[in-house]
């Protein structure tokens, strides 16, 4: 009797151990691949020793692995863009977006390759299969200027593009962090109220302020709402229903044509222009410029945000016309709007990774392209004239560079978080633009006094490096 019970106990154990075997088979073979692919699996980052490098356009190393440690020679300057690769905290930036290229070929399921690795390991060597190098469009000299200038402020972001190709020449976000000390610093960085991990240049959404008048002026001219000769009267305020708008950057600008209104940044005049366009036309042009649609970029990038068309009242529409209200834009997208003007009405597709080089041989080259053509070349030329006037005689004189025709637009974006955000968006030289720069400094005051000098310095460095 007892022995039968013991033998049943034996059967129970056989059953329990079979359940273990079954569950383990499921975990290791069936669920295994999807578990292994989870982003926080530190094994992704372990192939590090042979992980490819990330390079600037001139071959300067932005990220490389030395003795099993990932090094970022530029440190905080490009931290959010290049990103990090951490066994504990996953990956970000280019390290994340191009992880597949950077990671050495996976030999799982390839017995011959595995054998090769084991033989190599036994000889104390790594097998030759290394990850590809990712070559970016970053120009270190421009990057250095941009980051140094921005880092004088608490929170700021900027981007420099080549309007002809969409190549990102420099991009920076402040405050930043040191990716070389990432694992140690992460808990602090993550809880930092200044959000140093966020790339403000691509993901920071700000009211664009008067820089958005580039869009409004271009769209109003293109749609025929106004002409270059239309005149406006600005007493310093405008009543829309029971709502009063005031100029904030300039004073009351009096009687002006559109160039004057633009150069002196009259909110009142642009409120009139926007109201004249009407909600439907304004929204049609938002779509034409690709604002609000997902931004086609190699890294995650936020697109402009604004309220749905059917909820708009005239007061809000008027504010959106000069970049206030509920409208939000990223520095990258503002740079693209300026690039559209610089590029004769065609918005280039932005890119930062130029090519992937595998084993010294270029494996894939990013083709240049365009995202949209919202305005004609003639309209673009008109807007460019207005932007030249801003720097020559308007709110952006601080961006003047002797001997170079700089076209730009200031922005002073009021916001609920304190002082206005200072914006400046510009390109040069005006006749054959080679560089576009967009800069925002959070809660710093006037765009013309805070942001324009930064953009000017970046422009000056860039023009000396980027040739025709």
């Amino acid at each position, binding site marked *: *009797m*007892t*022995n039968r*019970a*013991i*033998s*049943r*106990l*034996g059967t*129970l*154990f*056989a059953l*329990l*151990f079979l*359940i*273990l*075997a079954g*569950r*383990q*088979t499921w*975990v*290791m*073979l069936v*669920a*295994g*691949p999807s*578990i*292994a692919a*989870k982003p*926080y*699996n*530190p*094994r992704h980052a*372990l192939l590090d020793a042979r992980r490819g490098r990330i390079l600037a356009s001139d071959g300067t190393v932005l990220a490389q692995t030395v003795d099993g440690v990932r090094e970022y020679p530029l440190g905080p300057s490009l931290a959010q863009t290049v990103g990090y690769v951490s*066994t*504990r*905290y996953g990956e970000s930036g280019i390290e994340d977006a191009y992880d597949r290229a950077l990671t050495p070929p996976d030999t*799982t399921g390839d017995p011959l390759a595995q054998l090769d690795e*084991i033989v190599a*390991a036994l000889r104390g060597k790594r097998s030759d299969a290394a990850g590809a190098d990712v070559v970016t469009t970053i120009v270190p000299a421009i990057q250095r200027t941009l980051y140094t200038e921005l880092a004088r402020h608490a929170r700021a972001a900027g981007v420099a593009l080549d309007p002809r190709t969409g190549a990102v020449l420099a991009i920076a976000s402040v405050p930043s962090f040191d990716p070389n000390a990432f694992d140690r610093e992460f808990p602090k960085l993550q809880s930092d109220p200044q959000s140093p991990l966020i790339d403000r240049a691509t993901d920071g959404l700000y009211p664009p302020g008067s820089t958005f008048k580039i869009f409004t002026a271009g769209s109003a001219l293109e749609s025929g709402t106004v002409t270059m000769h239309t005149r406006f009267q600005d007493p310093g305020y405008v009543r829309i229903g029971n709502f009063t708008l005031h100029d904030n950057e300039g004073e009351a600008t009096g009687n002006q044509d559109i160039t004057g209104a633009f150069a002196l940044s009259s909110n009142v005049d642009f409120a009139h222009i926007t109201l004249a366009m009407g909600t439907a036309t304004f929204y049609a042009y938002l779509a034409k410029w690709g604002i609000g649609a997902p931004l086609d970029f190699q890294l995650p990038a936020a697109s402009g945000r604004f309220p749905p068309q059917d909820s708009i009242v005239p007061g809000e529409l008027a504010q959106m016309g000069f970049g206030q209200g509920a409208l939000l834009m990223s520095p990258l997208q503002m740079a693209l709007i300026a690039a559209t003007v610089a590029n004769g009405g065609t918005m280039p597709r932005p890119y930062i990774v130029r090519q992937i080089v595998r084993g010294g041989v270029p494996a894939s080259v990013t083709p240049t392209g365009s995202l949209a053509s919202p305005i004609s070349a003639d309209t673009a030329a008109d807007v460019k004239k207005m932007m030249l006037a801003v720097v020559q005689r308007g709110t952006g004189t601080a961006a003047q560079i002797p001997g170079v025709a700089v076209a730009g637009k200031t922005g002073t974006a009021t916001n609920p978080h304190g002082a206005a955000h200072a914006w400046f968006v510009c390109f040069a030289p005006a006749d054959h633009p080679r560089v576009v720069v967009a800069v925002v400094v959070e809660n710093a005051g006037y765009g013309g006094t805070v942001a324009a000098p930064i953009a000017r310095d970046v422009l000056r460095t860039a023009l000396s490096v980027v040739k025709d």
Partner: protein
Amino acid sequence: MDAVVRYGRRLLPMVLALAVSALLLAYAPAKSLGAPWLLGLLGALALAWVAWQPATTERDNLLPALAVVLSALGLTLVARLSPDLARKQMLWLVVSLVLAIAAGPFFTHFRRFAATKYLWVVASLVLFALLLIFGQQVNGARLWIKLGPVQYEPVELIKLFIVFFLAAYLAETADVIAAARPWSVRANLKYLGPLFIGWGASMAILVLQRDLGMAALLLSTFAALLYVATRRLDIVIAGIAVFALAAFWAMHHFPYVQTRVAVWTDPFSDPLGAGYQSSQAYYALAAGGAFGTGFGLGHPTFIPDVATDYIYAAFSEEFGLIGAFVLIGLFAVLVKRLLAVGSDQPDLYAKLLGAGLAATLGFQVFIIIGGVIGLFPLTGITLPFLSYGGSSLVANFLLVALMWAMSARVCVPTRSPSSSSR
């Protein structure tokens, strides 16, 4: 001559086990095992253990051999994961083997344990009391007594004592309990009462210690013993139901149990916080695949406490599903042979003692492996012989030593023709 052959046959399993152990340990990283003479001492002790057995009886010599192979595998794994712990583990192995050898003469008279059955209860309570007073709290559970440099986890010994008590008590009362009708409260309470005191006290204190793994282990051992003794499934089911309720209660009252359950249901929802250890174990298992990464080629050291609670995940990563099957198979063979030792006993007490010890080892393997591979929430108990941990090694070596002594069958030595001529 015959005597030599017979003696050789007795030593053969251990000799083979030592050969396999040497092969395994050869893969341990260089210098991780400390002085070579210590390994030699371990081998000599293992050999001495089986060599010193009465000539007139025949024992199941596979039992010590399996214990040695499994602990050699454990030592190899610990050495690969943490050389520091490996050196301590070697000392603990020395202690375990010395204790197993020293306890040998007592274990041959294991039937005397029945006479002192309440002594085991008292001993358990004393150990618990010590734990309550001097215990160190680790990861929310109070499990350790620290004596100078030595940490000891008394529950590992208590698990043996409880089996000693239950086997002796049930051997006396089994018939009556079995005969009592389930609905007769008086008949049941009369004999089950003392059992529940012994069991319930351990349970209660375990819940106080917050060591749910050991509580589950003791409960399943208790249920198995009760079933073997009385074949009363109703009591067994009632006992399990009570435990389930207790566990449910614990889940709502101990935040750390709550966390463990949450981690079990979805380890990947908080992969950097509470779910870190569990998700790292899953990554290790996933990396293993069918054939494993190969010894030393995986990355199991991402798992916190890998040498204790999660050594099975480390093993699975590097030896793969195939290796895991072999290991589960080895444990299955060990449990089966232990159960067989129980069945082969002539009297009920010894049968219960054997079955109880076999069950406690079997359930311990099931509970920790099941926890590691996510069959149920992880409870921090050791994988017998493999995990780092002195208390577990000592207790499990003693368990095997006792069962090995119990496996003795009297054999009549065949006499050589020359001696039988007279």
